[in-house]
């Protein structure tokens, strides 16, 4: 039986207030759709042997490159095997459900056994449109063993319509007038696709335990629940007031939340919208009880830092949008040569004396044995700040000063230098705990320079309202 084997999610730490008691999740200035996807992938693969993964699909409308696969970078950062299937599925709000559907079919066809689907978006909109947007990512492992939710049926519908779109090379999403967008698009097309699948499956609304469906905003989402005939308790909470509309990853993040609350035997309907609709039907199995230690959606939402101002968020996004071709950047050949060290955060462990070290060395720093190492991953290791400095220099954009530069000692050995992220600079101390997070250091010469930073454990933000 093919279906979902595991799930994971990533929601950036920062929240921007959108009104009394409402907020949206926004990415830090060193995050993009790819880094968030990596974090969700890592959450999804917790307690799962990464060597068993044989494919990765990355769904987004905001890929880092126009030509250059992001799925390969994500696979490298998540430390997946090399002989795997990778693809980016892009250019539509429906990319998330599309990727899920294609992954299920890939496994059904026998082309892969354990296929990771990541969906992530960091969208911008003009004229206040993006006040409803949020940033975040979801990950699903699709396979045919130990399935926690089996695929019971699906239906897709393609619809040619310019309702919400973004032209190539343009930053902001735009849309046609509201009445056209909703009445000729969303409110018309999604019910049609759902109805077809329900009829095909001999199901009626009352047979669905939880309905997970796209909504452009809270009002239309509620309207859709009525059209589809679901009672409020059947409808998955869409998190407009906590997370925001995360684009291609939106319904997948809601699906993570639905699975978090699910019981064996539940029937979950998933409906994605954008240039048509994808509807998928899942049945939850006993194995769902085995899922543990996930950040998922609920815990991620509960660990947050409130941003100081809208202006600060603007500065983040303006920084990310500065002409990427303008400055000299990292060398493509260096990145290629050192991609295990840079993207997978691999150091080495000396097979003679056991000393772990980062970055990889040819001659052991301790026993001086030459070329006798095995790779050693630091990405999942916890560490402590051995020393640090607060930097006010030109390598940090003004809005992010002071930056924090650290020397980290890892549990299990090894020491290395990292920038720190998602911290409150004034609270950084020698000896504090840190964990690692995949980030972008910036763009130069058209090259995104991805690397790891350390940060206070995400756990430490749980249940706090910190500014």
């Amino acid at each position, binding site marked *: 039986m093919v279906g979902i084997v595991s799930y994971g999610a990533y929601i950036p730490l920062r929240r921007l207030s959108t009104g009394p008691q409402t907020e949206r999740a926004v990415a830090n200035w060193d995050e993009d759709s790819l880094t968030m996807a990596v974090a969700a992938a890592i959450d999804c693969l917790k307690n799962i042997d990464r060597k068993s993964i044989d494919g990765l699909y990355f769904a987004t409308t905001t890929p880092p490159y126009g030509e250059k696969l992001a799925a390969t970078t994500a696979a490298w950062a998540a430390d997946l095997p090399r002989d795997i299937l990778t693809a980016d599925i892009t250019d539509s709000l429906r990319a998330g459900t599309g990727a899920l559907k294609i992954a299920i079919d890939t496994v059904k066809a026998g082309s892969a056994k354990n296929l990771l689907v990541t969906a992530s978006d960091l969208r911008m909109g003009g004229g206040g449109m993006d006040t409803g947007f949020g940033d975040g990512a979801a990950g699903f492992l699709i396979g045919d063993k130990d399935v926690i939710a089996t695929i019971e049926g699906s239906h897709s519908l393609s619809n040619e319509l310019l309702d919400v779109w973004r032209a190539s090379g343009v930053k902001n999403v735009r849309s046609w007038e509201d009445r056209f967008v909703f009445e000729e698009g969303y409110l018309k097309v999604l019910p049609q696709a759902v109805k077809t699948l329900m009829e095909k499956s001999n199901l009626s609304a009352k047979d669905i335990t939880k309905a997970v469906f796209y909504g452009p905003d809270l009002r239309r989402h509620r309207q859709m629940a009525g059209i589809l005939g679901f009672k409020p308790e059947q409808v998955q909470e869409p998190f407009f007031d906590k997370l925001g509309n995360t684009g291609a990853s939106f319904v997948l993040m809601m699906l993570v939340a639905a699975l978090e609350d699910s019981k064996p035997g539940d029937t979950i309907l998933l409906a994605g919208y954008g240039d048509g609709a994808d509807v998928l039907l899942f049945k939850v199995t006993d194995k769902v009880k085995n899922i543990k230690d996930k950040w998922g959606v609920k815990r991620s939402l509960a660990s947050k830092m409130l941003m100081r101002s809208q202006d600060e968020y603007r500065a983040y996004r303006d920084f990310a949008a500065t002409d990427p071709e303008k400055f000299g950047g990292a*060398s493509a050949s260096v990145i290629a040569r050192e991609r295990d060290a840079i993207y997978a955060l691999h150091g080495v462990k000396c097979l003679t004396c056991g000393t772990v070290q980062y970055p990889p060395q040819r001659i052991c720093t301790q026993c001086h044995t030459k070329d006798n190492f095995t790779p050693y991953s630091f990405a999942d290791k916890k560490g402590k700040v051995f020393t640090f400095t607060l930097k006010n*220099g030109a390598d940090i954009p003004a809005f992010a000063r002071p930056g924090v530069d650290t020397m980290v000692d890892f549990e299990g050995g090894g020491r290395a230098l990292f920038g720190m992220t998602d911290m409150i600079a004034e609270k950084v101390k020698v000896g504090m705990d840190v964990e690692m997070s995949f980030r972008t250091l910036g763009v130069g010469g058209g090259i995104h320079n991805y690397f790891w930073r350390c940060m206070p454990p995400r756990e430490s933000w749980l249940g706090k309202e910190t500014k």
Partner: protein
Amino acid sequence: MESIKDKVAIIGMGCTKFGENWEKSADDMLVDSASEACEDAGIEMKDIQAVWFGSTRINTAEPCAAALKLDYVPVTRVENLCATATEALRNACFAVASGVYDIVLAIGVEKLKDQGMGGLGTVSGAGGNGTMEWGISAAMFFARMATRYMAHYGMTYEEFKQVLAKISVKNHHNGSLNPRAHFQREITEEMAINAPMVSWPLGLYDACGVSDGSAAAILCRADMAKKFRDDYVLVKGLGLAVGARQGYLQPSYDMVHMEETVRAGQQAYTMAGIKDPFKEIDLAEVHDCFTITEMVITEDLGFCPRGKGPEYVKAGTFKLDGKLAVNPDGGLKSFGHPIGASGLRMIYEIYKQMQGKAGPRQRKNPTLGLTHNFGMNPGSGIGSVTILGQRD
């Protein structure tokens, strides 16, 4: 292994004014320092048989030969980051000691103020060829040591900054007595403590400035030095130790000392036959690129016990009139750090002090002096120590 002790003599030295020498090119400064050194030694430029030329920004030897209009003599350009000028002298010493050359020139120059930058970046700080995040400014690298020093010895930020301020005040005082220094104004502890932060916990007055400058030394075999002058100065010991990133790779490295300085000091002390540096050495020019660096160096070189730097600083031990004057000429704090010239600028002060020509900064009858440089970063650097002494 043989010691270099008493085999090589310094018979002439020159040093330009350090500072924002807008009206001087690197060539101008090379001519100025080399001419002063030749005149001081009583020789002419054509008497020089070989040259060791230190610079980090000029990366070949030819500009030095061209500036000085040397007559097809060998010129070797040396570079060893902040120890570059000392490296020129060190290699020149070995050539003289071998007997291959009789009279040689060690010279260093740096023209930083043509580069349009306000502060020194690092030439080798970015890890993974620019793909990793190892930091880009010298202040960051030394601030790591400062933060660790506070944590290691349980000092509060306020206690710590007060000690660093005293080092800054001392060096600026010494610099105020030196017409060749870039900065010749006294500062107060309050100014140092309240200065804008560069890289926490290091502020503006914890850092040295960016300057232009050049310094030069004429060397000959010790047995022929008397032909040139009576008050020549002898090279007693030379030490150089280069780190292999032990501090970056090994969690056992404490980051409150610079092993390269310790090792270079041991090498030089052994050559010079020094048993107790604090008792035997009268004055030391050390690499105060940051105030924390000076304090740790005094511990690394055995001028005070480990962790006792703050006590010694508070007691005034290293002041101009203290037991062991550290940076009597004002140090990098007052001179700035034209990288390729700094080591020879330090040696210039020791040389003048030995000859009793240090003016208002003159120490009483110094017999043994030390210079020290530290390049790159705590955790992995270049330590360089030179011991100089009066002739018997």
